[in-house]
């Protein structure tokens, strides 16, 4: 049987660093059953023993305040790890012990890692670990997770606890006479009725009732409604009494007494502080500048813009490599296979689809590395602190800003890493609202579409239109967030109360593990689903193929072209290498054949499922001034937004259009009677707001934990975008623009 050790502790106590130090690269990242909270597992190998290590989510307490706390608690109760290693920040001992006391109340075997003992020492804090160990009755080992000091002793002591099989009775603290008396009465009832006792310790159940813990109250009601009601009645009585006599309630009383208990322990010669504990440290001095009323925002803009610039500039090269690799692969397959469906499926469906996903990988890695630096150094918490006031107006959280910026808040990001960056948000409603609105930002793939339309219709006002597009995206995203927060994601915002951790130098190991983990998850999960989607889109744009009669017509035209010139010219065309200079006649013939091929491609696209959908949709899309060609292009844009440009190219018989060089296409559009600046404006707005590309949809579904939200994003955004486009077209037309 394998022995399980759970790592628990406050956020910022160095828990993750210790976990990395203990397990090295032998980690497994997954999710706790049914929730999106990450579960990390690994193995520690000691001299003559092996321990299975599970990293519990960082929590301040074991109440049922957040998902993380419930997850940590359920793990302790259901999986019953042999020992819990509680990492406490030695430089912040008093508050960190609050969690430790709650483990002891549960009767879990605990081993305390007194972490960051070096930082504490530097701050003039001396801690007597032996004394603390004696008073709490559990081992206390000083450690420095960053350099691995103390980890061997820590794990040996943990293994020792496992072998010792010593049972720990739950710690009994006095919570004041009134609560204590009621607890004893409740314990009697609970024990007599075997109420939830298979799962939880008796006193702990009583305590949780006293704290009105929602999860336990729910379970109690299901297990024995009659007794549950009686217990709740007993709590109510105490609560009433406390409110009358002391103007407090049981939950607050219990917390007070826990802190009191900790204080009484620390007072017995455990801690010696040379300086006042609220003295300013270098971290606070940095904050004086970085969160300064005037300098703070300037530094923030510079840091974020810098990160953004570095990420998108330096990832360009490896992204280029990936693109080239997949192009080579595509060309290779093209050369090897005969023309036909299989080749088309492999090249356009599989390779382009998977390539589209893997092409993002270098970008995602860079982005996560950058965010990991901001996160691990403690700066991200400051950004949330500074911007919360603005984002709160729209029902979001200060931490939402990173996700927006990464997604293209400064035009040219990408919603995929943006969606994944919402993981730094702790409050579920704000997180969901952020997830659903970040795709409105102008990602790099939307830019070619804007460039095309601007070049065709607004060439003179390029900079201004681009600025308006950015502004429009932000306004739209924030307003929609507000709308969602008062409708589908209604509910009070989660308390903002959070810690600003001291600035710390991130460790390279930590950054690397962080980055790799997230990138790998992206590759694994997104890759499989996206391959499927990509094949479906390919099929929609390929089937049904043109009827035999139409194909023959094209074939006849092709032959007649060849017959119209002398055989020498045909031969010359067939033999000469692609780049070689052709004679005038041969060149003319080549152009004609190309034109015919493009016409055929247009006919094929028009005839395909996607084309037919586009034509049917014309009935509706007329309201916004979009014709069937635009409709198909927009359907294609669901694969990736830049596909809008290349599909428009095919639909206008221009052949494959390179999104970066769409001059001929923009001329065609400018001269087409179906188009006008008004239609173009509508299409720009539509492109900003309509359904996220399917890579984003997959990520949204994954991050929100439900396909429902992915589907919502597709439907809601498309309707919103269409509504706006219709509004623009109809009002504009009425005004005679």
């Amino acid at each position, binding site marked *: 049987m394998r022995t399980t050790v759970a790592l628990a502790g406050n956020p910022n106590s160095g828990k993750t660093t210790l976990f990395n130090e203990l397990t090295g690269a032998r980690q497994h990242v997954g999710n706790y059953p049914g929730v999106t909270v990450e579960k990390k597992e690994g193995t520690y190998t000691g001299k003559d023993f092996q321990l299975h290590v599970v990293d519990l989510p960082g929590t*301040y*307490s074991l*109440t049922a*305040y957040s998902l993380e706390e419930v997850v940590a608690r359920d793990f302790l109760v259901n999986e019953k790890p042999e020992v819990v290693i509680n990492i406490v920040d030695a*430089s*912040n001992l*008093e*508050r960190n012990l*609050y969690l430790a006391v709650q483990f002891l109340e549960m009767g879990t075997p605990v081993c305390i890692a007194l972490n960051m003992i070096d930082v504490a020492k530097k*701050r003039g804090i001396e801690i007597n670990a032996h004394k603390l160990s004696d008073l709490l009755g559990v081992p206390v080992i000083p450690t420095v997770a960053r350099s691995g000091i103390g980890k061997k002793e820590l794990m040996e002591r943990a293994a020792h606890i496992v072998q010792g099989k010593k049972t720990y009775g739950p710690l009994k603290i006095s919570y004041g006479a009134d609560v204590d008396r009621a607890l004893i009465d409740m314990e009697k009832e609970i024990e007599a009725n075997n109420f939830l006792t298979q799962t939880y310790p008796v006193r702990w159940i009583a305590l949780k009732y006293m704290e009105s813990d929602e999860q336990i109250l729910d379970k109690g009601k299901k297990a024995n409604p009659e007794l549950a009601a009686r217990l709740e009645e007993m709590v109510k009585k105490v609560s009433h009494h406390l409110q009358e006599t002391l*103007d407090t*309630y049981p*939950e*607050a009383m219990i*917390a*007070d007494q826990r*802190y009191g208990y900790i204080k009484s322990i620390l007072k017995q010669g455990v801690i010696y502080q040379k300086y006042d*504990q*609220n003295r300013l440290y270098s971290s*606070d001095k940095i*904050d*004086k500048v970085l*969160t*300064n*009323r*005037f300098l*703070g*925002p300037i530094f923030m803009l510079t840091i974020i813009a810098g990160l953004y610039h570095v990420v998108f500039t330096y990832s360009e090269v490896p992204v280029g490599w990936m693109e080239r690799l997949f192009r080579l692969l595509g060309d290779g397959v093209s050369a090897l296979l005969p023309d036909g469906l299989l080749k088309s499926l492999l090249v356009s469906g599989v390779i382009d689809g998977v390539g589209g996903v893997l092409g993002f990988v270098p970008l995602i890695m860079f982005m996560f590395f950058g965010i990991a630096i901001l996160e691990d150094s403690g700066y991200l918490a400051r950004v949330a*602190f*500074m911007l*919360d*006031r*603005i984002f*709160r107006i729209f029902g979001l959280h200060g931490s939402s800003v990173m996700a927006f910026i990464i997604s293209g808040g400064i035009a040219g990001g990408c919603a995929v890493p943006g969606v994944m960056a919402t993981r730094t948000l702790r409050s579920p409603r704000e997180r969901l609202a952020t997830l659903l609105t970040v795709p409105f930002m102008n990602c790099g793939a939307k830019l070619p579409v804007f460039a095309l339309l601007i070049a065709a219709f607004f060439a003179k006002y390029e900079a201004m239109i681009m600025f308006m597009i950015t502004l429009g995206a932000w306004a739209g995203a924030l307003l929609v967030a507000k709308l969602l927060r008062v409708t589908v994601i209604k509910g009070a915002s*989660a*308390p*903002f*109360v*959070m*810690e*600003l*951790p*001291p600035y710390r130098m991130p460790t390279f190991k930590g950054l690397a593990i962080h980055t790799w983990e997230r990138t790998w998850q992206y590759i694994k999960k997104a890759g499989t689903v996206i391959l499927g989607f990509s094949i479906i889109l390919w099929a929609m744009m390929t089937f049904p193929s043109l009827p035999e009669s139409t194909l023959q017509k094209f074939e006849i035209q092709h032959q007649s072209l060849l017959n119209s010139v002398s055989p020498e010219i045909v031969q010359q065309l067939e033999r000469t290498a692609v780049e070689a200079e052709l004679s005038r006649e041969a060149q003319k013939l080549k152009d004609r054949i190309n034109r015919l091929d493009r016409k055929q491609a247009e006919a094929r696209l028009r005839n395909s499922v996607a084309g037919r959908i586009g034509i049917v949709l014309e009935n509706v899309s007329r309201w916004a001034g979009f014709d069937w060609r635009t409709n198909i292009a927009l359907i294609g844009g669901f694969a990736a937004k830049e596909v809008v440009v290349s599909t428009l190219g095919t639909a206008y018989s221009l052949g494959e259009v390179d999104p970066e060089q769409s001059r001929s296409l923009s001329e065609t559009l400018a001269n087409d009677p179906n188009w006008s600046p008004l239609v173009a404006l509508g299409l720009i707005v539509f492109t900003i707001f309509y359904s996220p590309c399917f890579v984003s949809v997959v990520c949204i579904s994954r991050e929100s934990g439900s396909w429902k939200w992915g589907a919502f994003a597709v439907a809601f955004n498309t309707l919103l975008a269409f509504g706006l486009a219709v509004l623009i077209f109809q009002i504009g037309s009425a005004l005679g623009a």
Partner: protein
Amino acid sequence: MRINMRRMHDNQFGTIAAIKVAGDLGRRLRDMGLVPGTEIRIQGRAPLYDPVALRVRGATITLRNNEADYIEVEVTE
């Protein structure tokens, strides 16, 4: 003198006298170490004067002004 935390100025010291809120917020405040009798100092405020940052038990905690409203603080001046 007992005042509302929102009224405290930067760098002012005080001792928490009462926290008048139950539910999630009350729980969260206690979990972060804010209970009656705790000494605090206002460390500063965000550029838009909200949220506020406090020094508590050697750590820096931030909360929104409308959350600070529930906290009464005993100050000397």
